[in-house]
């Protein structure tokens, strides 16, 4: 294990800690400091790193969205706490953390408290399967893409539980909409993924990025798939124009109307973690992951350690900027219109895309010499 993968890095820190501690720990405790404890600590460190990456990125995305949305609306966004408002979200989080957790008297206790926790937990779990650079992933799984998508589609159930348990009519309608939305976007989303898997020949996200290093970004041959995946991802992460479950114009705050304080913070954080994962997946599946074509500028940068993570993060923030752009520029669709978009437009397009991908597998991609 070397220090240039996530697990290797965690083991390195763990070994460093244990080697430093062993001389000063009293003799009776030395059996506790053996190799098993070192391994366990290493995995704990790896998990904490993933957790912190997800949370810090999610908080940064909130800042990024607020700044961008402010610019789109001809205002400045958060700007007072920290440099350019960078710490504003931490201040907001602290305020929400200090609030008393309240539950409506008629709400179902178990469902009400379980839903935000499960929503956030399952969302955070996905991050464990997403590589941010070669080897920088804790869960090395041959089916990591499938696992990530399976975990991704858990959320509507928890939203529905929370909505039902809140015992509020707005929440109930919002929860029902989540269910309706699920049928609209899941099928085209998976078809778009199928085309990528066909072309890459693997379910392993690292393998998919490797395939893109060989063939070039999949955004080029699978442009249709990218569009479908992007639109379906907007629906999956419940952002405008598909934020029907929390359409604030008619449903106040939708399914999380009754959540306040830290519970609200958790649901919002989970929303952004999912936004982050959506951007991650788009970058991994279509935009070449951490790989950029070598150019005069990129070639020099690629020599640095962790350059892959830098490129990956850059792409993720660009993709999320497009999410924000869409939010600023498009109105919200209606539930029935979402179903129409999903079934009448996106499924045919994604099917055509699957055929295209199959054709590329047969005749070979690229059909012409590699451009970049």
């Amino acid at each position, binding site marked *: 294990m070397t220090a240039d993968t996530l697990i290797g890095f965690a083991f390195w820190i763990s070994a460093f800690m244990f080697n430093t501690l062993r001389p000063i720990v009293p003799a009776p405790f030395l059996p506790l400091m053996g190799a098993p404890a070192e391994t366990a600590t290493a995995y704990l460190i790896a998990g904490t790193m993933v957790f912190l990456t997800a949370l810090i990125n999610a908080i940064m995305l909130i800042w990024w969205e607020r700044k961008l949305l402010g610019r789109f609306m*001809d205002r400045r966004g958060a700007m007072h706490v920290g440099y350019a408002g960078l710490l504003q979200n931490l201040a907001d989080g602290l305020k929400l953390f200090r609030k008393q957790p309240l539950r409506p008297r008629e709400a179902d206790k178990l469902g009400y408290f379980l839903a935000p926790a499960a929503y956030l937990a399952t969302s955070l779990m996905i991050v464990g399967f997403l590589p941010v650079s070669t080897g920088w992933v804790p869960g090395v799984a041959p089916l990591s893409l499938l696992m990530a998508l399976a975990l991704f589609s858990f959320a509507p159930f928890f939203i529905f539980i929370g909505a039902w348990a809140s015992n509020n009519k707005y929440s109930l309608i919002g929860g029902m909409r989540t269910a309706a939305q699920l049928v609209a976007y899941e099928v085209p989303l998976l078809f778009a993924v199928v085309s990528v898997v066909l072309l890459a020949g693997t379910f392993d996200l690292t393998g998919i990025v490797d395939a893109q290093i060989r063939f070039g970004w999949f955004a080029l041959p699978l442009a249709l798939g990218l569009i479908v995946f992007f639109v379906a991802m907007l629906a999956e992460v419940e952002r405008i124009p598909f934020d029907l479950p929390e359409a604030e114009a008619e449903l*106040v705050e939708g399914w999380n109307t009754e959540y306040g304080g830290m519970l609200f913070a958790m649901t919002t954080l989970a929303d952004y973690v999912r936004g982050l994962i959506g951007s991650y997946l788009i970058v991994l599946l279509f935009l070449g992951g951490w790989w950029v074509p070598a150019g005069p500028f990129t070639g020099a940068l690629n020599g640095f350690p962790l350059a892959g993570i830098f490129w990956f993060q850059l792409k993720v923030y660009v993709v999320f900027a497009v999410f924000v752009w869409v939010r600023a520029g498009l109105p919200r669709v209606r*539930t029935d219109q979402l179903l129409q978009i999903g079934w009448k437009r996106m499924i045919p397009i994604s099917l055509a895309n699957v055929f295209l991908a199959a054709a590329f597998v047969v005749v070979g991609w690229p059909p012409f010499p590699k451009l970049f």
Partner: protein
Amino acid sequence: MSEMWVNMGPQHPMTHGLWNLRVKVDGELVTDAVPELGYLHRGIEKICEYRRYNEVVTLMDRTCYVAGLAWEQLYLMASEQALGVEVPERAEYIRVMCQELQRLASHLMWFAAFVMDVGLMAPFGYGMRDRDVILDLFQSFTGARMTYEYMRVGGVRNDVPVGFTDRCRKVMGWLEQRIKDYEDLCDRSDIFLKRCIDVGVLKAQDCIRNGITGPMLRSAGVARDLRRDRPYSAYPELDFQVAVHDAADVYGRYRVRMEEMRQSIFIVRQTLDHLDRKPGRVIAEKVPRFVGTPSPPPGQESYIVRRGYPKGVGFSAMEEPHGEALAYVVNEGGEQPYRVKFRSPVMVNICAVRDYLVGYRVSDIPAIMGSIDVCVGESDR
């Protein structure tokens, strides 16, 4: 899911004010709707009876907080008729300019709120920003941004400052381009059209049966505009067109208001030309002295009759940004109006809610109610 009643209001993002829309929903389908008004009733009509004529103007600003000057003029036109006061020509032109600027401000506010209701984030900021520029104009000659207290019995309080007309012209030219941009932004958005077309349809005969006026009526193809059909103030001398659309749906209302904004800019330019051309008095020379004297302290208000002053009644009708507003003022020879009564177009437009909401979906409610342009301060008074 069985049917259930949902309260949308009094505190709800859709309401734009303090009122309660009770809708009966069957899943996503609206099967019944009942408006509940009165949360903002301040008894303005009754308070008017204890205030001198000029002091009532203060209340009129509070009647509709996005179109204060419109209500000031509505009330003053009726009370000037009741008192027998003539308004100088320049004052009439300034008033008309105020009306049209106020219509622009109100429609921009509506635009901002409406696009927010259908889920468009960015134009909300644009609408509010442009309204702010008009409020700056108001501030330059009335001294206030929302509660102006600018008009008086017999004219207006003061003339526009030096250089105002040029500044206003600049703003109008800029705004014209802006409105075109907003139309492009909305009309070329497929989702926006999907949300607006064939939603909240209220045909012309239903509008007339319910007494609905203003942009809602004009969007149903009825070209009725009091500025043209029952001209008042300086409107007879001004040239403009009545904005009409025949879609009768949310989209039609949006188109009508956008066109009205363009016509308002056209009218404002004409009034500015007139103001540049003809100087003159802005308040009548002969105004009964008591209209400006302060009221007795609270608790000692009483209806004081002065012998020798003429009695009379006044009635005025005007095309307010929301629709046709009527006022009736009875002068029994007292220092205060004996009775003041208003007809608010918003009240009537809201009360027909069942006719244009039933049969549509819950998601359509904000779009439809947004297209009505609700101002609760005005409907509840």
